């Protein structure tokens, strides 16, 4: 009898324990929908390696929930239509967490599709984790409960960039060259808006939108920029659109400053070479010389893949998910989404917060400049002997921008 009592008590305890850690050991299937081919393919391929690398690092004991992360990439050829097919395939394959980042055009389509899916399929909800698409609409007019952004959006980046430019007295004439899609249009819009506010004396001498991922020859644009007399170019271009632009700028003898979002991304460091020293700037939520654990991971990544890791939001996604799953004691996307709202975690550069009102991660931003690598800032992307030297940090309270999001939450 005593033994039976003990056995029952033990059984109850065990059951209690297994309830408390119901999620422990579970496999979280995630699918990343991004371009792996085409002109912007190299960026997606490099990021896919990043997910592979950090899924291993953060699985099991690497996260407080004790779950195992599995990330599979699907090629969307940077097309919104292909991405919706990929989303369907991912959901059919059992994935409840969708990651995407490259191309705000794709992000807007996915955010919409995920919301519709969740509305029509209660009990089979999926979460959309956005690691790089920075169109402000995603967390403003088109905000959506199932979408979480881990990058900093264009309003935040432009706020910081224009504050920096505001202090550069030699910047007088600015040229805006961007990709002709949602992201490029927003960069141009907010660049004009914030500069007018912070440095009304700056003249916008020209503005251009070129086709996304199609331009192979930027020489005509460089000739035009030079003819306009601009001393500074602001561009949100990424991948080949930035590396070819920089290459043409070097060849065409453009000596002005270039303010970018993505100077450290695949292909661009090589195109910059030693030519861009002191003239090419990047505003981002991380850089190549963060120090600490991040630096160790970066070195290890380079050794393993002979590639550079730059999409720091990959790490944030795993940190946030791990913390949210531990808090929710579940891997169910509905519970995890609720747990992630307003969640704060310690990341590689201090505390970051997933703002509840619009699901925009609140994080510090860094202004860096392309210059020679030094013992203080040693990490050199693409073995160029150069690095992005940090100039200024914009902490959360500075980089944060208001939102107009009126989020509809599931009742």
């Amino acid at each position, binding site marked *: 009898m005593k033994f039976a009592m003990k056995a029952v008590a033990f059984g109850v305890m065990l059951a209690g324990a297994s309830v408390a850690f119901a999620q422990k050991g579970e496999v979280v299937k995630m699918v990343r929908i991004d371009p*792996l081919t085409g002109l912007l393919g190299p960026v997606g391929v490099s990021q896919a390696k990043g997910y592979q690398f950090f899924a291993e690092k953060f699985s099991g004991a690497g996260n407080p929930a004790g779950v195992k992360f599995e990330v599979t990439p699907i090629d969307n050829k940077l097309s919104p239509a292909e991405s919706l097919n990929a989303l369907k395939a991912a959901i059919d394959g059992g994935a409840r967490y969708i990651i995407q980042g490259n191309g705000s055009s794709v992000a807007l389509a996915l955010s919409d599709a995920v919301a519709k899916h969740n509305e029509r399929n209660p009990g089979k909800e999926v979460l959309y984790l956005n690691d790089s698409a920075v169109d402000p609409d995603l967390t403003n007019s088109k905000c959506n409960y199932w979408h979480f952004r881990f990058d900093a959006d264009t309003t935040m980046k432009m706020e910081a960039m224009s504050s920096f430019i505001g202090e550069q007295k030699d910047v007088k004439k600015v040229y805006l060259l961007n990709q002709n899609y949602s992201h490029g249009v927003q960069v141009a819009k907010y660049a004009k808006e914030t500069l007018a506010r912070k440095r009304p004396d700056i003249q916008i001498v020209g503005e251009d939108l070129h086709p996304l991922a199609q331009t192979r020859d930027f020489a005509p644009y460089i000739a035009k920029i030079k003819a306009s007399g601009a001393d500074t170019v602001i561009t949100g271009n990424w991948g080949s659109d930035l590396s070819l632009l920089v290459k043409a700028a070097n060849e065409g003898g453009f000596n002005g400053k270039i303010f970018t979002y993505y100077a450290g991304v695949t292909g661009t460091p090589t195109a910059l070479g030693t030519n861009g020293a002191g003239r090419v700037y990047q505003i981002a939520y991380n850089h190549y010389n963060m120090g600490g654990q991040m630096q160790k991971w970066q070195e290890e990544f380079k050794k393993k893949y002979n590639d550079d890791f730059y999409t720091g939001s990959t790490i944030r996604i795993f940190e946030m998910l791990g913390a949210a799953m531990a808090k929710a004691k579940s891997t169910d996307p509905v519970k995890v989404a609720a747990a992630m709202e307003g969640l704060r975690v310690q990341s590689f550069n201090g505390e970051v917060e997933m703002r509840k009102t619009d699901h925009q991660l609140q994080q510090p931003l860094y202004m860096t400049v392309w210059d020679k690598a030094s013992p203080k800032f040693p990490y050199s992307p693409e073995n160029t002997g150069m690095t992005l030297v940090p100039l200024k940090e914009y902490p959360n309270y500075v980089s944060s921008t208001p939102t107009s999001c009126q989020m509809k939450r599931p009742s």
Partner: protein
Amino acid sequence: MEFFIISMLNGLSYGLLLFMLSSGLTLIFSMMGVLNFAHASFYMVGAYVGYTVSRMVGFWPALVIAPLVVGALGAVFERLCLRRVHKFGHVPELLITFGLSYVILELVQLIWGRIAVEFRPPELLQGPVFTLINHSAKGLSMVWGAAPAEMCQAADAAVRLVCSPFPATRGFMMLVAMVMLVSVWLLLTRTRIGLVIQAALTHPEAVEALGHNVPAVFMMVFGAGAALAGLAGVIGGSTFLTEPSMAATVGSVIFVVVVVGGMGSLSGAFLASVLIGVIQTFAVAFDYSIGTLAAQLGVQLSAGALGNTFVKLTLSQVAPILPYLFLVLILIFRPKGLLGTREG
């Protein structure tokens, strides 16, 4: 002024690259009546073979070897495939080249991968060929090679000084295209084989009756056309970018060139490619839109109309579609092309 010169040279060099491609296409068309859909694929193969060979033995040997390899591939394709379907008429010929372009694309992706490879021009071509110096007081001058830094820095703040280097890769592109143009022209008009080719263009039966091996001439022309595309590939690939979609992007433009210039006309192809290169380059430079045009003509538009997306579209934004607009207009108003001789 230096903006005009540099833009003109940019346009000319791009146009001449298009000519290198379209000359082979138009030769093949005029001779065999085959609209070779795989022509741009030969351009891509040229770039990739050039990339591989240049890594083994250097860029300059690659410039010779890659076109020869591509030419041989073209000749083999003509001998083994095209000639067999020739007797079934033009549509099967067209379809087989269409199929070939897909086969080549997939093969290239299998061998070299789906993303761009790094095909760098040689040291010699990495700097500028000359630099234009525009001094607001002293006027325009030119220096060969790169200009020394002190010449590009104004000592006086009131002086506007702009240095515009012209990349050597583009200069080389123009040089090769001109050499090619002259040699193809000499070959066609001054040599015996050229006479046979010209005769076979219009009267193949008569040429055959005179004892010439017309199928062999066809094979040679197809191979030579492919080799020219291969040569353009080595130069285009190293100057711009070597990646699997490079065939698709020039493919449609060279058809425009051939149609606009006149099917089968070499001089037409030259004129059309230079024209399209220059138009595309200059279109980027102009910010004129219907709105600004109306303002200049003194037409007052309402605020709503000025905010309209179409009224706001500038010439630089529509630059990518201009060649195709040109194609449609030519087909409507002058179907034989600018310098073409045959109707329809």
